[in-house]
């Protein structure tokens, strides 16, 4: 599904990723762990085609992507429901699907709110709902539990596990428990690159 071959990424004179080789097969679930600034998000951006590697190759066989960014990136003048529906078809016909996913993340009652009316945790749940609503065969989750309170983390983790079991997943996290629950393989940043944890 997605293959990184000797990928190096440099930005403004700083090497962010060095010689990363990784393969996520179709249906495979991989978690990336490491300290902040080690290049986890950059690897997801490479997978999404938002960045080009300085050297090496990134090959993706994904037909459609779903990406929950680290920051929610909600369209500020659309309601919560419209934000989710915007990634489906933007037409009223897909609104029931958007509402269904919003209910799953516990935001059915906030459907008519605007992004500025949401707390950080609520905005993050909309971000996740948007990615889950989209039937992308490659799912990229960048720190999906960020901003969520303790009470919600387990619910959302179960929901993510359920929704990602038939999809190819690349997830970044600081939480070893979340990595174990969501992924079958965990890559850890060590000595400037990502290596598979035994």
């Amino acid at each position, binding site marked *: 599904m997605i293959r990184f071959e000797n990928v190096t990424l440099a930005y403004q004179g700083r090497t962010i990723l060095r010689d990363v080789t990784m393969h996520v097969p179709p249906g495979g679930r991989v978690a990336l762990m490491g300290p902040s600034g080690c290049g986890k998000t950059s690897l997801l951006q490479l997978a*999404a*085609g*938002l960045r080009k590697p300085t050297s090496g190759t990134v090959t993706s066989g994904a037909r*459609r*992507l*779903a*990406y929950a*960014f*680290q*920051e*929610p*990136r*909600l*369209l*500020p*003048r*659309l309601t919560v429901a419209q934000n989710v529906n*915007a*990634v489906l078809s*933007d037409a009223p016909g897909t609104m029931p699907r958007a509402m269904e996913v919003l209910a799953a993340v516990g935001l059915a009652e906030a459907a008519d709110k*605007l*992004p*500025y009316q*949401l707390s*950080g945790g609520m*905005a993050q749940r909309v971000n996740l709902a948007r990615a889950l609503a*989209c039937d992308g065969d490659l799912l990229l989750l960048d720190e999906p539990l960020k901003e969520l309170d303790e009470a919600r983390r387990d619910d959302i983790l179960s929901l993510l596990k359920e929704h990602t079991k038939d999809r190819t997943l690349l997830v970044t996290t600081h939480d070893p428990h979340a990595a174990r629950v969501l992924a079958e393989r965990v890559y850890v940043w060590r000595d400037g690159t990502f290596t598979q944890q035994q």
Partner: protein
Amino acid sequence: MDRWKTAWKGMLILAFWLGVWALLARLVGRELLLPGPWQVLKRLLLLMGTGDFWRITAVSLARIVCGTLAAVAAGVVLAAATCRSRFLRAVLSPLLTAVKSVPVASFILLTLIWVGRDILPGVIVFLMVLPIVWQNVAAGIEQTDRSLLELARVYRFSRWRTLRRVFVPEVAPYFLAACRTSFGVAWKSGVAAEVLTVPQRSIGRQLFESKLYLETVDLFAWTVVVVLCSLAIDKLLTAAIMIIARRKRMFSPPNDTFGGK
């Protein structure tokens, strides 16, 4: 309650300045040099009773509105084109600088050689408004949140959806601000062009002839007409903008936290 307070305050300020005007007119004591507000009002009411007054005002208004609308449309297209293509930006930027820096009087006299005097004020309005809209809309496009454009790219928004959901809300405040500034500039430059070229039916011609025949009261009355038309259009435009903005939630509180960078 606050609205009444503001209205009263506005009326008091207006009354104060009308009083200053009346006092100055009394001190000068000659209608030819400075007519008082009462004389100007009387003349204005007299003019308003004639069919010619409405025809002249309508024709001037049409010229200015047409020039402005054409410039707004062209400004949006040029802003989009120059933001999309570096080549077009490099080629068209000198044109923008030239239009901005050449004095309006030079444009009027130059354009008089090329087009008829009836069309000229509209052309001048177009030239004066074009850079305002062009620059503002281009600034709006350039300020568009890149992270939202990335979102649109990842989720494969069509061009239309990207335009509607990302660009339009981001650029709208810049566009609307440009529109408001444009109408003020349009009236000033349009009437100035009419004064210099004196087309048949125009407020500018009335101003020119009033000055020529030393009819100072008429000069003041027609100036009041220009000010009232400009104010009326500004108020109408502001009301329309506020209705659209409320319906489309264009001015909802800023969303720095959730916009992402």
